[in-house]
């Protein structure tokens, strides 16, 4: 049985800890990872809690496969909380080594509440949990923190997740990093940790993790290992996700200069091909995974000589084409600085591009930027601005550290026109103007703009739908993908490995049962995915962030047509088709026109106890909604 059956509760205010049993009914209904995490979040938080209030729980959740030899899932954990960026559900997953260690220490989840008086780190050594002084770690990068903690605890196999200066200073785009380069990147979880005066969590687990049916489990992972050597993971093992640069550029779907153009004239120079030829020195892997995808870049010469960091498409795009920067060594350095300060590379890149757009349009001048020439394409300005966001340096650095949404509101002067976020979370690298299934998927995602909540860009890019329009039927495509992705994120399978489950949910259900011994069918798993989406929506509704008015697209996506030559020219999302998409999605979800789950739907999913959240809102569309 691969659940440990135990949840660790830590109150940082009093320093008290308790170990309580995991409710096994919830375990099956919510699987683990983000599913279990979101359920624990709604159960352990009060409506309207400020994300930085000590009572906002920070939940670390492993999955039923964490700690086993399951390739890509054995090494994972998720973090769930209320997001300082969106004020709705926050969730993020990371792989590497930390998750397995936490599981071996004996925990399915850790619920952290309260706030320590002084900066501390948590040392989970199997059943022993201590809060240790972290004064000496203040201002240190996650990488430095990890090294110092291993050294002082005297064990190099201790695994650490930690925040950098950005998290300590409550930047709403701060991330948590574990195992050097693996990030709990999105939705500002680093800031929640910082608000609790928690610098790091170090874990050492020496307990066995057992699966229910070892012989068949062994055969199953053997098969997955073999499949991982095949075509479904080719991209990740060869050029890596930066392969997307030229692919997206050719489709006119590569957002450039803060979503001004959809193709980048400098694409070749920041392509996966260029990167691998000149900078990638080694491709390494996470614990238990047979795939290896971590492309580690090393800058051999020039002003950034010696910079070493992991590079993948999203951060490369955000800090490269999206900022108009075609100097790859500078982009690698900017990624490195994000890791140093502990910043979400996607959000940070989109914030810098937002500031650049404001500068180009005269909303920001050299007076506000302390003399920095923030034109698109300036590599030095990019790196300096990243550093300022990470340390909240200067008037602008301090404002940008609040994220694009809040920065635009503070700057005023029409800056909101250039703010590319949904629900407060910055857009990743897909130009939604010509990827309209993705546009719908991003708009309804419960954690804000995200390509990994549904992967709804996939049918657009594959050409299985007309990507230049939104029409009836897209709602179902988005819903099915979302539900499947919820399952993936609750088993905490790496999404890079999603293609190796040839039979999709059938494979995943079998995987679950072999590990846990709990019967699970593909249908039940599908329903768990649906349940998770609904409970996340309920949390957002409870917090006033989960109805139709919150499912929006940024002004640029809806008003600035793609200017580039070619088939995509002139495309952007109009209100009429967007409403068709939303209506279609809500209907297939069994939600009202206002995007609220009906009592019937809640009953069907076993969520009746939460009916109180929707009773005041169901069926009453807000003004302006169709």
């Amino acid at each position: 049985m691969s659940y440990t059956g135990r949840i660790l509760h830590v109150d940082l205010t009093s320093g008290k800890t308790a170990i309580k049993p995991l409710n096994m009914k919830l375990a099956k209904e919510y699987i683990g990872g983000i599913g279990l995490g979101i359920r624990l979040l709604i159960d352990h938080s009060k409506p309207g809690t400020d994300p930085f209030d000590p009572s906002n729980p920070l939940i670390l959740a492993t999955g039923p496969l964490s700690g086993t030899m399951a390739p890509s899932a054995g090494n994972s954990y998720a973090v769930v909380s209320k997001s300082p960026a969106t004020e709705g559900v926050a969730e993020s997953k990371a792989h590497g080594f930390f998750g397995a260690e936490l599981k071996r220490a004996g925990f399915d989840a850790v619920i952290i509440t309260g706030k320590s008086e002084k900066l501390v780190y948590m040392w989970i050594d199997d059943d022993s949990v201590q809060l240790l002084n972290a004064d000496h770690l203040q201002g240190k990068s996650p990488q430095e923190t990890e090294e110092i903690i291993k050294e002082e605890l005297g064990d190099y196999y201790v695994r650490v997740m930690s925040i950098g200066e950005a998290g300590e200073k409550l930047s709403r785009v701060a991330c948590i990093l574990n195992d050097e380069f693996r990030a709990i990147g999105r939705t500002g979880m680093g800031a929640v940790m910082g608000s609790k005066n928690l610098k790091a969590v170090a874990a050492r687990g020496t307990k066995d993790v057992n699966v229910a049916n070892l012989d068949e489990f062994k055969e199953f992972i053997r098969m997955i290992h073999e499949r991982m050597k095949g075509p479904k993971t080719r991209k990740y093992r060869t050029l890596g996700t930066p392969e997307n640069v030229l692919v997206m550029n050719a489709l006119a779907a590569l957002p450039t200069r803060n979503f001004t153009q959809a193709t980048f004239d400098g694409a070749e120079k920041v392509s996966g091909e260029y990167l691998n030829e000149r900078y990638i020195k080694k491709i390494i892997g996470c614990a238990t995974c047979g795939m290896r995808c971590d492309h580690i870049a090393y800058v051999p010469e020039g002003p950034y000589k010696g910079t070493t960091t992991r590079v993948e498409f999203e951060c490369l795009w955000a800090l490269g084409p999206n900022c108009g920067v075609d100097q790859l060594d500078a982009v690698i350095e900017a990624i490195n600085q994000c890791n140093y300060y502990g910043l979400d590379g996607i959000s940070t890149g989109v914030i810098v591009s937002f500031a650049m757009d404001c500068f180009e349009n005269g909303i920001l001048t050299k007076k506000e930027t302390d003399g920095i020439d923030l034109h698109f394409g300036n590599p030095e300005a990019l790196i300096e601005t990243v550093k300022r966001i990470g340390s909240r340096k200067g008037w602008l650095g301090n404002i940008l550290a609040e994220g694009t949404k809040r920065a635009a509101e503070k700057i005023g002067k029409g800056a909101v026109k250039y703010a590319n976020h949904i629900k407060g979370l910055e857009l990743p690298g897909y130009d939604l103007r010509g990827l309209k299934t993705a546009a719908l998927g991003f708009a309804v995602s419960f954690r804000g703009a995200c390509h990994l909540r549904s992967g709804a860009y996939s049918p657009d890019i594959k050409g299985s739908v007309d990507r230049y329009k939104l029409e009836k039927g897209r709602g179902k495509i988005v819903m099915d993908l979302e539900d499947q992705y919820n399952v993936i994120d609750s088993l905490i399978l790496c999404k890079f490995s999603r293609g190796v489950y040839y039979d999709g949910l059938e494979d995943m259900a079998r995987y679950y049962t072999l590990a846990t011994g709990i019967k699970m069918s593909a249908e039940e798993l599908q329903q768990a995915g649906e349940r998770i989406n609904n409970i996340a929506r309920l949390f957002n509704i409870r917090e006033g962030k989960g109805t139709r008015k919150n499912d929006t697209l940024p002004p640029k996506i809806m008003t600035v047509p793609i200017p580039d030559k070619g088939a995509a020219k002139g495309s952007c999302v109009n209100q009429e088709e967007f409403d068709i998409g939303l209506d279609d999605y809500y209907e297939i979800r069994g939600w009202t026109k206002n995007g609220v789950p009906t009592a019937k739907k809640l009953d069907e999913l076993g969520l009746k106890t939460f009916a109180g959240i929707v009773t005041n809102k169901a069926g009453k569309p807000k003004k302006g909604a169709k």
Partner: protein
Amino acid sequence: MPTTHSKKFVSADPNKCVGCAVCEYTCSMMKEKTYNPTKSRIRAVRLNPFANLAVTCRLCEDPPCVAACPRDALTQSEETGIILVDEDACNGCGWCIEACDYGAIMLHPETKVVYICDLCQEEGKPQCIEWCPEEALDLVTSDLLAQKARRTVVKKLFQESLKSTSG
């Protein structure tokens, strides 16, 4: 007894090893029927992203672990060269652990006696090699390693001429 040159042990190729620890999980799965790297006879080491290597027993000639044991609990098999542990004699004092230059001896967290790679005698061949996704592990002799090193260094020397012959 096999000579130094014919004794085979598990070795990782530093150019191929990515530090994924699949070998550790395999070892604990095959030997202990559980998943727990602290019960593995091979351990992956990652110094930085570029420096990864799995390390296990190298079946030394005149093994210092055997010499260090005050209770004569360790012996080297004449036939295979593997280090055999007499579990009744071992009291877990750890002198052998200290004596090993490779950190290849571990103290079992539950039985409190040491355990060492036995090349998966029961399975017939080392399972970590079978499972390594990078094919970084191999059963080698020190002579074969020396041969490989010689070939690498000579290849380097003749880089240019090799290029021209391959067109």
